[in-house]
């Protein structure tokens, strides 16, 4: 379905999702900027949608044909007001395939918008990968209803885990209302203070539930822990893994944690992985060190070194190797900017 703009794209997938259809759209930074308002609508109405955000270099049109990882904090914060969403990032093509299925499950189970982060480097890379095995994929539709026997259904009825059984347009006995306003259990506009607290807390609770229920290995990948440990996300994974091999050959041991679930942030798990680490090195393709700032916000310690690239060119293993080596040899500045590529 080709829409006229990205506002229409997210509006249409929300409309389709209300019928019980799994629905998704994909865009890059400028388009995602246009989607921010409707993302909040999906959040307040607990509508499962998946938005694939394929990042290029911003701001504005930026370097429109080139690579970047500078939309992380925007994906986490896009939209006004407090509402839950999951932000999940894939590191390569193969992860992208299996993660897409996971993102749809997250959306359905938690009735929540999910932003699946990809980037130009992944999207424009032709790679040879093992044949995708769709039998490994599970499909979880959560509390989506097939049938409602009794009258009296209410869309936002309380339940022990905070997630209400979900009707869909067209289902008999399942009539509900949705609105961008705060609403009562049926979905009609309500400004009642007690109801407001119930609904806000009900929605926010999903993030705690997601952190509890989503397997740790899906939240972050531990490639080994060492005194010097790299943290990163997305397609920086490839050059980092190659650089670690190169460093190993020279006798340097370096750990690496790839964070996949960026929101809600797996604070406890990442904290435990990093507990014995002496030096944290953040590597990513943006100017501000956005993942680094997330770590600084959530952990009880700070990132020690930043290796950043924001020329729009992909990161190479050689420049990662050189800059990590400098850190281990105690010859590095706190922030190194990578420049390889014309």
């Amino acid at each position, binding site marked *: 379905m080709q829409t006229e703009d990205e506002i229409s794209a997210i509006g249409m997938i929300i409309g389709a999702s*209300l019928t019980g259809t799994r629905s998704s759209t994909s865009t890059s930074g400028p388009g995602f900027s246009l989607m921010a308002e409707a993302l909040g609508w999906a959040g307040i109405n607990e509508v499962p949608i998946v938005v694939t955000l394929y990042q290029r270099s911003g701001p504005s049109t930026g370097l429109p044909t080139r690579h970047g990882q500078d939309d992380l904090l925007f994906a986490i914060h896009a939209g006004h007001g407090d509402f839950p969403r999951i932000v999940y990032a894939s590191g390569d093509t193969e992860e992208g395939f299996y993660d897409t299925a996971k993102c749809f499950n997250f959306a359905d189970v938690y009735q929540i918008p999910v932003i699946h982060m990809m980037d130009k480097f992944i999207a424009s890379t032709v790679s040879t990968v093992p044949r995708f095995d769709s039998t490994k994929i599970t499909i979880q539709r959560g509390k989506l209803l097939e049938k409602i026997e009794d009258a009296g259904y209410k869309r936002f009825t309380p339940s022990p885990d905070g997630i209400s059984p979900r009707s869909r347009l067209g289902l008999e006995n399942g009539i509900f209302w949705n609105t*961008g306003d705060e609403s009562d259990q049926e979905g009609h506009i309500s400004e009642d203070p007690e109801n407001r607290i119930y609904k806000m807390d009900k929605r926010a609770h999903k993030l705690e539930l997601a952190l509890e229920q989503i397997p740790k290995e899906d939240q972050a990948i531990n490639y080994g822990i060492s005194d010097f440990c790299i943290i990163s996300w997305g397609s920086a994974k490839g050059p980092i893994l190659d650089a670690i091999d190169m460093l190993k050959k020279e006798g340097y041991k370096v750990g690496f944690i790839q964070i996949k679930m960026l929101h809600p942030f797996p604070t406890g798990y990442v904290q435990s992985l990093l507990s014995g680490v002496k030096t944290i090195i953040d590597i990513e393709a943006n100017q501000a060190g956005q993942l680094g700032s997330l770590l600084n916000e959530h952990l009880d310690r700070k990132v020690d070194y930043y290796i950043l690239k924001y020329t729009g060119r992909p990161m190479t293993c050689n420049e990662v190797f050189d800059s990590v080596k400098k850190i281990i040899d105690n010859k590095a500045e706190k922030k190194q900017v990578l420049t390889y590529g014309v």
Partner: protein
Amino acid sequence: MASNLADYKTEVHNDWCPGCGDFGIVSAIQMALAEMEVPRHKAAIFSGVGCSGKTSHFINTYGVHTLHGRVLAFSQGAKLANPEMTIIAAGGDGDGLGIGAGHFVAAGRRNVDMTYIIFNNGVYGLTKGQASPTLKLGLKTKSLPEPNVNQSVNPIALAIASGYTFVARGYAYDVRQLKDLIIAAVKHRGLSFLDVLQPCPTYNDINTRDWFSGLDNIDEMTNKPMPRIYKLEDTGYDPLVHIDSPEEENEKLTQALIKSNEWDSKIPTGIFYKNEIIAPYDERMAGRIPNYLENPPAYQEISSGGKSITNISKMLDALEI
């Protein structure tokens, strides 16, 4: 035998101003649904933001109160996923022709089989009466410090130019005609547009109920008011494109555009243009996906016992090296 009208009403408190034209439109929608006997769960009212945005809460079918200007995006998405639903989108003229104008035009190109009703009152009534896209140039309604400095958009002409295949106008105080127009619009195969003149008693002190009734426009001979509103059907006007020929289509489009420009002393209501020769979007889609209508996305099974039942092996075979 029509369904019970009361079944289509909710208990939700209505805070529209006394005398608001919106009441007539909601009644007409409820009456139309009852007369067509649309099962309540098979209908969904989508609405935009503004006074008219609350429409979906007053009708006892599925109701989706969306975002300012985006009602067509949400509603088209739902209709495409579940073509069995009767979908009515509703919103104000600011919603549909200001912030939502891009979607208004794009929707015409698709011709999705649903109905869009614009509550047209020339002002942004929920936000204290600023000039909206349909207020005429030079008019100074109650809230404006200076006369309106912008030209007005012509919703009927814009709908025709955008490709809507059913274009009509109703009047909020003629509920019987409006109900009939809504039924005709819903039954039309394709995207139907209904421009409803809906006086805002609070902020539009120029295009009032009395103005539409011609109380300021007294016939010198009879000493009676000459109503501005008239019905196209009373003049022998034929809106239907009967045959698939450019000449026929040109004639019907042109007469509709000319009629759409009437205002001030004579304001036509009724069906301006109707073309059932142009295929609705679902038929175009079925041309690509043959079982689209029998097995639309909303009813497709995608898993069994938690496992995917979609076979992607052909797609993967094509990529194998």
